[in-house]
């Protein structure tokens, strides 16, 4: 298949082409590597390209097919991972300079292993905000990830390279992490579909942590179907992750086309309207109208939930990095270092109060799901700001930019709820809408996302490169 035909292909289309023999896996990977090389200066998405490994895997897929062996469900699909995932042979940077001194990982993250068992092909590791304490995609050591829709703008973070690589057509699939919004923010700013599964659904073994009680791993892609393909391949209990849930695999792909009529939907009001730009409110309204969602609900105490998430994140991450702050504070990104040091000084009763509030809040929100199947809310308060921007105007008031990027994502990951972000293709920059469901109901969120995509309401816009 000609190289141009391999551009902007969904993972599902690549599987079809490779499985049917219309394209070889090697041709797909060679075209992918060419695009990655060509994009380096413009997008700064990759920090490592696993060229030889990828070509070897592609050759193995082609050889197996030639022997008549069945192709995996992700045959020939190139993917890349945020550089906090262990990749055998690479130091797990987690966006830092300090971790360059770590010995190379001796094995892959189990999520990489599971995707490759389905014949996906790892092509490299992606840029990210240092130690994931970031919503911008900027990085003092490796440079900012750049938004393919306008490289002067942020990708969002901390999974910034994931956003740039998928929206920039370097790969159709990337794996990121989301503690307070780090999959959902880049999905919104870069115009992608992103899945933050239920806390405990996907194994976090062999990934570098940030704030362990909030850390989630998940995929970003350009369609709901591609999210489902990857998600199904990665599900399954893993004893190597202490919070991995002992649940059966619950495949979502077979139910993606089920009707969404009859689902009880509501728009999050109150807190989720305050501080949102006209673009964010308009995108939610467009999605709600397409789904016939007319009800509005208030998620109780969402502002306090965000505050509590902020406090626990500060304490957990400071505890994680305390030894490095003592011995090599100069090696951190200064902005990250100052946040971590402040977190180390938080009085313990405040942190425990936040954990106690978390229990109360979880009970209140789970009660909402007794009468609602999904809640719609903006993913970010605004479209992608310019790289380096420090302040933003919200509700007529100028406020610091960085801490306000995650105001709509933090109250959701705080209690581990599954969320799919769908991109609404506004011009000049897209913005995302969160579809939030009860724990373990990723299937409902993905069905809704797929429906919106079929109806042309949600779409990953192709950048004019």
């Amino acid at each position, binding site marked *: 298949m000609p190289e141009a035909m391999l551009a902007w292909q969904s993972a599902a289309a690549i599987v079809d082409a490779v499985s049917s023999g219309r394209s070889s896996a090697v041709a797909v990977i060679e075209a992918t590597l060419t695009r990655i090389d060509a994009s380096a200066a413009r997008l700064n998405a990759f920090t490592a390209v696993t060229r030889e490994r990828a070509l070897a895997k592609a050759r193995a897929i082609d050889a197996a097919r030639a022997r008549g062996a069945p192709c995996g469900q992700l045959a020939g699909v190139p993917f890349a991972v945020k550089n906090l995932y262990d990749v055998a042979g690479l130091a797990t940077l987690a966006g830092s300079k300090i971790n360059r001194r770590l010995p190379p990982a001796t094995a892959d993250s189990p999520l990489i292993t599971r995707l490759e068992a389905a014949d996906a092909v790892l092509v490299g590791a992606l840029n990210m905000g240092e130690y994931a304490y970031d919503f911008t995609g900027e990085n003092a050591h490796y440079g900012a990830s750049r938004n393919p829709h306008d490289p002067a703008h942020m990708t969002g973070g901390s999974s910034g390279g994931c956003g740039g690589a998928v929206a920039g057509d370097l790969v159709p699939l990337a794996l990121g992490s989301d503690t307070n919004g780090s999959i959902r923010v880049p999905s919104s700013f870069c115009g992608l579909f992103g899945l933050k599964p239920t806390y405990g659904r996907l194994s976090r073994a062999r990934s570098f942590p940030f704030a362990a009680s909030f850390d989630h791993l998940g995929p970003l892609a350009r369609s709901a179907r591609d999210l489902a393909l990857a998600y199904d391949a990665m599900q399954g209990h893993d004893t190597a992750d202490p919070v991995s849930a002992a649940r059966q695999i619950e495949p979502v792909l077979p139910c993606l086309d089920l009707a969404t009529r009859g689902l009880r939907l509501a728009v999050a009001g109150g807190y989720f309207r305050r501080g949102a730009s006209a673009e964010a409110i308009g995108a939610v309204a467009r999605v709600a109208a397409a789904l016939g969602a007319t009800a509005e609900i208030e998620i109780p105490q969402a502002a*306090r939930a965000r505050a509590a998430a902020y406090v626990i994140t500060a304490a957990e991450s400071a505890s994680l990095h305390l030894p490095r702050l*003592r011995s090599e504070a100069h090696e951190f990104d*200064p902005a990250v270092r100052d946040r971590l040091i402040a977190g180390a*000084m938080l009085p313990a009763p*405040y942190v425990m*109060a936040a*954990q106690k*509030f*978390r*229990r109360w809040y979880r009970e209140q929100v789970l009660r909402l799901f007794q009468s609602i199947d999904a809640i719609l809310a903006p993913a970010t308060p605004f479209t992608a700001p310019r790289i380096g921007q420090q302040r933003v105007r919200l509700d007529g008031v100028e406020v610091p930019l960085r801490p306000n990027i995650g105001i709509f994502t933090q109250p959701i990951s705080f209690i581990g709820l599954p969320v799919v972000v769908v991109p609404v293709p506004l011009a000049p920059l897209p913005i995302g809408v969160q579809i939030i469901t009860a724990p373990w109901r990723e299937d409902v969120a993905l069905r809704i996302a797929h429906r919106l995509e079929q109806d042309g309401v949600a779409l990953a816009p192709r950048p004019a490169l």
Partner: protein
Amino acid sequence: MSDETDRALESLIAAAAELLALPIEPAWRPAIEANLKATLQLAATVVEFELADDLEPAPVFNA
């Protein structure tokens, strides 16, 4: 926050840095102070919310 609170914050940072063995350069202090102040303000909104004594904190250890 009042000037008094700001002074208390400065004292807390100085004492905590010593106790935690964190080497803090003078140039870093304004940003650390701003971060800690913002986090404490958020924490205050959580602490003021009344909850039952017997409500279990979120992370539960299972033996």
